[in-house]
């Protein structure tokens, strides 16, 4: 589920959006905090400055006792509990104020300072103005700004929680968006699946809303229109070609047969004509096989699909090829579980399995065994396997074995058009299945995998 969700475009979009949203809100809040903090700093500074001035003025007007008086008054009455004062003589020995000693961090540098100060038994963030007064007196006026720092820490914590919340909200939003998008995409998927399985006349539904999906659907529909035209064109051309070739081939065969009927039994000319007819029949067989392949690939046979019992099909094929194998001294074994059902074209499945069995018998030596089996694999698939103990197919040849007209090294010199496995592969494709060739050491196992028929379609 997790990796599946991450692969979903809408969830990724939502997460990306969440990140952007968080960045944006942080920037906004950060800026506000920065401005607020600066304002608060200025406020504090103004108060400190005013205090310092007041002490300085008293010193100026009433001398040292006046200044001491003022400081004591302010500290004693706790006008501002955060206020800190320290007045020292030129040697930094405290004269008045609520600090016991001159803070080392400030040293002898007049001006603004922000330091951590042990104060009332705790470290506090404090801000000081250090002013050198006339006659060598040193004045330190400050404020405990610990509260402000605490606020800023709290804001930072809140921002983190807000970020987590934003991620959660974005995730939930993403799921909602995903569901909405999936609903549209599923419709597109269903229709395109129908189109893939051969129904080129299907069109994607549009809602007339001209939104992105509608525009996509419209574009795809135009594309489908084009494809349908092209496919029809090709189909028409190959029908015409088939027709145009079939008639002259029929004429040619007719002429040769007419010649054969001239009574001259046994003459060399008759033998040659017999050979020509046999050659022509091979051409016709290949021609028919090619057209059959084209017919399967066009998906036109999907109309012949129904739920078929594999045990019956396999038993009949084995029955057809059994005597051929027997004659070669090859044993055919059928191992099939009952009630294996697939949805398909029974004739094409029989032809495909027939081709596999025919090949297996062809490449078996006397005494060999051909195993024809069908079994469930997982919940959804059925494997039909046909295994022989013949020479097998080399690994480098396997990918080519199902190509049209490909003839492997082992098959050279034997009969066959090189279309047998192509047909099996085409039948597999038509059934949404696959054909794989595997080593059996010795021999070859051809595996035809098909989807199991749904019990209640």
């Amino acid at each position, binding site marked *: 589920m997790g990796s599946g969700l991450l692969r979903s475009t809408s969830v990724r979009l939502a997460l990306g959006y969440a990140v952007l949203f968080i960045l944006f809100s942080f920037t906004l809040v950060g800026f506000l905090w920065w401005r607020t903090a600066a304002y608060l700093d200025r406020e504090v500074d103004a108060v400190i400055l005013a205090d310092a001035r007041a002490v300085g003025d008293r010193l100026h007007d009433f001398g040292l006792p006046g200044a001491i008086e003022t400081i004591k008054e302010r500290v004693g009455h706790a006008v501002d509990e955060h206020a800190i004062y320290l007045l020292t003589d030129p040697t930094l020995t405290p004269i008045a104020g609520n600090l016991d000693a001159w803070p080392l961090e400030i040293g002898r540098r007049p001006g603004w300072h922000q330091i951590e100060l042990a104060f009332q038994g705790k470290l506090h963030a404090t801000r000081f103005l250090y002013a050198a007064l006339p006659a060598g007196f040193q004045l330190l006026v400050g404020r405990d700004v610990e509260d402000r720092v605490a606020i800023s820490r709290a804001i930072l914590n809140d921002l983190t929680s807000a970020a987590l919340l934003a991620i959660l909200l974005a995730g939930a939003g993403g799921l909602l968006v995903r569901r909405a998008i999936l609903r549209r995409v599923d419709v597109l998927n269903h229709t395109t699946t129908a189109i893939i399985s051969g129904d080129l006349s299907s069109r994607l539904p549009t809602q007339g809303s001209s939104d992105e999906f509608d525009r996509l659907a419209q574009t795809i529909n135009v594309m489908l229109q084009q494809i349908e035209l092209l496919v029809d064109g090709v189909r028409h051309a190959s029908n015409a070609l088939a027709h145009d070739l079939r008639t002259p081939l029929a004429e040619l065969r007719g002429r040769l047969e007419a010649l054969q009927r001239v009574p001259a039994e046994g003459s060399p000319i008759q033998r040659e004509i017999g050979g020509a007819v046999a050659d022509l029949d091979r051409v016709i067989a290949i021609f028919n096989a090619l057209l059959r392949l084209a017919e399967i690939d066009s998906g036109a046979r999907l109309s012949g699909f129904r739920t078929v019992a594999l045990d019956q099909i396999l038993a009949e094929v084995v029955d057809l090829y059994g005597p051929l194998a027997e004659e070669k001294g090859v044993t055919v074994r059928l191992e099939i579980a009952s009630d294996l059902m697939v949805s398909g074209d029974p004739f094409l499945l029989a032809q495909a399995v027939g081709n596999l069995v025919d090949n297996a018998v062809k490449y078996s030596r006397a005494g060999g065994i051909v195993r024809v089996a069908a079994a469930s694999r997982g919940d959804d698939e059925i494997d039909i396997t046909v295994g022989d103990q013949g020479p097998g197919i080399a690994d480098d040849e396997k990918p080519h074995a199902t190509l049209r007209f490909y003839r492997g090294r082992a098959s050279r010199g034997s*009969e066959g058009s090189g279309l047998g496995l192509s047909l099996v592969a085409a039948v597999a494709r038509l059934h949404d299945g696959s054909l794989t060739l595997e080593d059996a050491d010795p021999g070859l196992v051809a595996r035809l995998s098909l989807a199991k028929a749904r019990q209640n379609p």
Partner: protein
Amino acid sequence: MKVLLVEDNDRVAQFVRNGLREDGHTVDCATEGRDGLFLASSERYDVMVLDRLLPGDIDGLAIIESLRKTGNRTPILILSALAEIDDKIRGLRAGGDDYLTKPFAYGELAARLDALVRRSQGTAAETILQLADLRIDLPSRKVTRAGKPIQLQPREFALLAFMMRHAGQVVTRTMLLENVWDYHFDPQTNVIDVHVSKLRQKIDADFARPLLHTVRGVGYRLDADG
């Protein structure tokens, strides 16, 4: 027998006509659908061979449909350059009795026409078929030759029964594949020959007079006379 041939290709028509005439049949020919339909509805034929695609506005299927609508039950073989399974189904559904794709062997056509005529003469629901001293009982599936029982596998029995129904006629390998196995594809190897030779072993081997004959280049014939 009397055959109507509707085929627009002169050479194909000529080669079919010559073959049928040499085999001793009477053949009427038409090259257009209109003429074909006229002949088909005005004369009595034992069997008709119709090209599926014909020039003009009446094609082979149209002829079949109008004949069947007027109650004409003459067996019809459709000859066609259209070889897709759907074309075949459409032809048979329209009322055709058999479908042969071009190019074809004359022997195949002749054998199928014989089979069609035999079928239409319909020896109704026979239960016992007999040829010389070979006798098969369909309901009990018993086969005897000269009174001696012969054990056959179910498929061998079906094969023999089909050939017995067409005794004296040539049956082609394709016809056997279609009628006994209901397969309509090229099995690549001549599997039918092996089945027939197994059957021959059982019914002919122990007897002086062979009944199952090979017709070179075409197929087989079950016949009391060599």
